[in-house]
């Protein structure tokens, strides 16, 4: 299978998307952006490659003579088992890393006590792992750092409560080890992991012989099929330090505009709210950007604003929108500055306002900024496509719909795609296809060269 790669290195998350030469999505991957951009890109790309393998797997499974429901079930179980194997593999590395840290001379005094505690913590984390991969909705995040961190902290708190091992020492070990694990690029054998996942599914199915033979065949076929990356375009925040060759970097404004237009060809106006950028983009009938505005100097009203509010309320980012939707009224919030908004939130709560009502007001304040940017870019035209991580927040979407109707009437169709976070990577991949057609293919960044080497 031959494909091109688009990577969107955002301030919060890094996304990769593989497109076939025919422009079909082969796979997508997402990971936390980290201090090392190379690693973030490599991890997102690995994820996308893994997803591409599953795409192939799906095709092979579809060729099997079985009822559609069974096939889907088998695919889901294999995917979850694969993720579980990956998670366990990561936990193994975390253990190795902590062992190394404990071997340092200054740990002599605490070594035995901490080693015992860590063994217990990671043992329990491993034992609890299958529950995290039991199908859709079984975990709160797809990122190893979040999942392992939650498990580690829970167990560490329990052990520390007994009074012998200080919680801070355990947490310090985890913090250092996770950083090392995250900034190391893993080149794993997909087929090994898939075989292990298949074995796990077989064990879970009671070792039925027909399933066994079928799985073996499929796994071998998928593992053997080569995926060739032909060329590559990168985009995203922090242009100075992107780990991409200059000739394959495209502006994220062009990528978002083009990606949104690909998903919704009627698109004329795009709003993208990412981690720290808000962009209002106008595109023509073919997806070429004609005008744009983006936030300047101040990132209030971007994704980080919500992240900050979530931290203030001790909530997960994904919980904010649904909670705000329960508001009975909207508290008027005057601050556009994120830090001031945080202070206003605390003040309102102290005055007895309901959490969801204040949150509703904060969402409105945020979207008002976005609508002002849209106005400066020329307005909102039919169709209007909302992209970026914040498009996943249902309250943000609700407020945006209201504001667009208020300012531009009811005639504007609003598009939001479940994959809106991948719009930038999609645009980048489309540029990669264009480069390929123009004979400018063959560009692979260093991290991709190493991983394939």
């Amino acid at each position, binding site marked *: 299978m031959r494909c091109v790669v688009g990577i969107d290195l955002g301030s919060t998350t890094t996304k990769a998307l593989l497109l076939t030469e025919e422009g079909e999505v082969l796979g997508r991957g997402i990971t936390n952006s980290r201090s*090392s*951009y*190379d*690693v973030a890109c*490599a991890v997102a790309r690995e994820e996308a490659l893994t997803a591409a393998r599953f795409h192939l797997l799906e095709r092979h499974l579809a060729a099997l003579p079985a009822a559609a429901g069974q096939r889907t079930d088998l695919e889901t179980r294999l995917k979850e088992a694969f993720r579980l194997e990956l998670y366990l*593999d990561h936990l193994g590395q975390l253990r190795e890393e902590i062992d190394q840290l404990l071997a340092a001379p200054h740990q002599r005094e605490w070594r035995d006590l901490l080693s015992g505690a860590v063994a217990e913590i990671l043992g329990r984390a491993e034992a609890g792992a299958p529950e995290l991969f039991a199908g859709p909705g079984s975990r709160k995040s797809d990122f190893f750092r979040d999942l392992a961190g939650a498990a580690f902290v829970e167990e560490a708190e329990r052990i520390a409560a007994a009074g012998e091992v200080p919680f801070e020492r355990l947490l310090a070990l985890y913090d250092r080890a996770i950083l090392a694990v995250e*900034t*190391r*690029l*893993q*080149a*794993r*054998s997909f087929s*090994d992991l898939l075989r292990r996942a298949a074995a796990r599914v077989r064990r879970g199915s009671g070792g039925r012989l027909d399933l066994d033979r079928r799985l073996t065949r499929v796994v071998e076929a998928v593992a053997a099929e080569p995926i060739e990356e032909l060329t590559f375009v990168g985009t995203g*925040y*922090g*242009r*100075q*330090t992107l*780990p991409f060759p200059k000739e394959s970097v*495209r*502006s*994220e*404004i*062009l990528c978002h505009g*083009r990606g949104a237009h690909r998903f919704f060809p009627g698109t004329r106006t795009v709003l993208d709210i990412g981690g720290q950028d808000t962009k209002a983009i106008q595109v023509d009938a*073919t*997806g*070429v*950007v*004609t*005008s*744009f*505005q*983006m936030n*300047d*100097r101040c990132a209030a009203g971007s994704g980080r604003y919500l992240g900050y509010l979530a931290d203030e309320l001790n909530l997960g980012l994904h919980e904010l929108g649904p909670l705000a939707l329960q508001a009975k009224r909207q508290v008027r919030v005057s601050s556009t500055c994120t830090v001031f908004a945080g202070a206003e939130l605390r003040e309102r709560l102290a005055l007895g306002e309901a959490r969801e009502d204040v949150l509703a007001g904060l969402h409105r304040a945020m979207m008002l900024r976005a609508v002002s940017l849209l106005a*400066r870019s*020329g307005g909102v035209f039919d169709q209007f496509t909302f992209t970026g991580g914040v498009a996943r927040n249902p309250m943000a979407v609700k407020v945006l719909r209201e504001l667009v109707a208020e300012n531009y009437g009811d005639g504007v169709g609003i598009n939001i795609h479940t994959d809106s976070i991948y719009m930038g990577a999609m645009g980048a991949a*489309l540029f990669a*296809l*264009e480069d390929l*057609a123009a004979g400018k293919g063959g560009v692979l960044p*260093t*991290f991709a060269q*190493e*991983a394939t080497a």
Partner: protein
Amino acid sequence: MRTTETRSRPAAPAPPPVPPPKDASQLRQKRMIAEHFRTLERAPEEGRKVVYTFVPGNLTELLGALDLLPVLPEINALQSGMRNLSGGYIAEAEKAGHSEDVCTYVKCDLGMMKSGNVGPTGTKIPPPDLLLLSYTGCFTFLKWFELLREEYGCPVVMLHVPYQADGRITPEMRRYVVDQLERDVIPALERLAGRKLDLDELARRLELSRRTEDDLVAVWESAKHRPSPIDGYFGGVYYVGPIFSAFRGTEDARAYYRELLSEVEERIARGEGPTTPDGPFGEERYRLVVEGPPNWTSFNDFWRMFSREGAVVVAATYTKVGGLYDEGFRHDPARPLESLAEYCLTCYTNRCLPSRVDLLERYLREYSADGFLINSVKSCNSFSVGQLLMLRTLEERTGLPGGFIESDLVDPRYFGKANIENRVQSYLQMLESRKRGRYA
């Protein structure tokens, strides 16, 4: 299972260790400026009088004819910005009670004054004996000299230039300015100089100005060539140095523009682009028109964002703040006061929004530009008000794409390099996409 440590990315290309040689004209300008500041430093002991004044609507020939020495606080401020001194000066001014949102030229100037009034070449600038306030559309000028009057306790003479609200100059407007020159400005300058104005000397200087202005216009219009031999914005701010500051109407300025024009003509003959801080310009890929002043604190970084992408500015409005000569105006020794009045009236800052749009439209067409960019300066209301409207109107009239970036004159806190570079690159890539047309 294999573990690979990621290899570090190759470092970004370092700027050349030795700066490329400067053009002869540039070295000449440097000498002229150094000499002027040395003259200023000696002024108190030599008993020469010093007049502070503004670039738009400056009356340099008049001052020169009376042997008065001009100081231009705006130019000192932008020079401080280029020399990384403005941040400290602005902090000084804020300490003295000036708000964060005030024009940063003003704060930089006040901060410099409070820090000993040492000029850009390291010499002390004497205090003003008179403040010549030519008001040409920037309201802040009034407040600025009000503050300086308090600080220095010296007199102000004001020249009120009526705004070109309808985009044209009427005989009454000209008369009004000439009257002020005759009644207020010249008598005040004569009192300070201790002598009468020599009209022949004024005419001699105005004749020099006229010829200098011809050369400058030839330099601007050279950008109609492909490739353009000049950058009319980043290079242009150097080209206006002598004529916008202390040198209009002098032999020095005349020699500078002769030399500059011959350098430009040589580049045209050789088919070369402009000179940049990194050496010769590469292939010309985009021709742009720019509206608004540049950022001074990261001036070379800002320029590189364009030059490295092959974007050349073929015409700019900012380089017309001290005189719009490419619309035909010339100083005229036969009509000395009338032409000085017309000069003040034509300055870019004194023009209404519709005539600014007309000018930009003309530049876009006559210089075969691919698009235009507006650098909006937050602390400069006189420039920034209405710029988005100008952008929309120009896009509608010409069908050419406009870009919008935001920074500041001399406050380094307001230059977000990554953000600005992102916008500039996005804009240039947008031009590229539009040139290529439909996506496949």
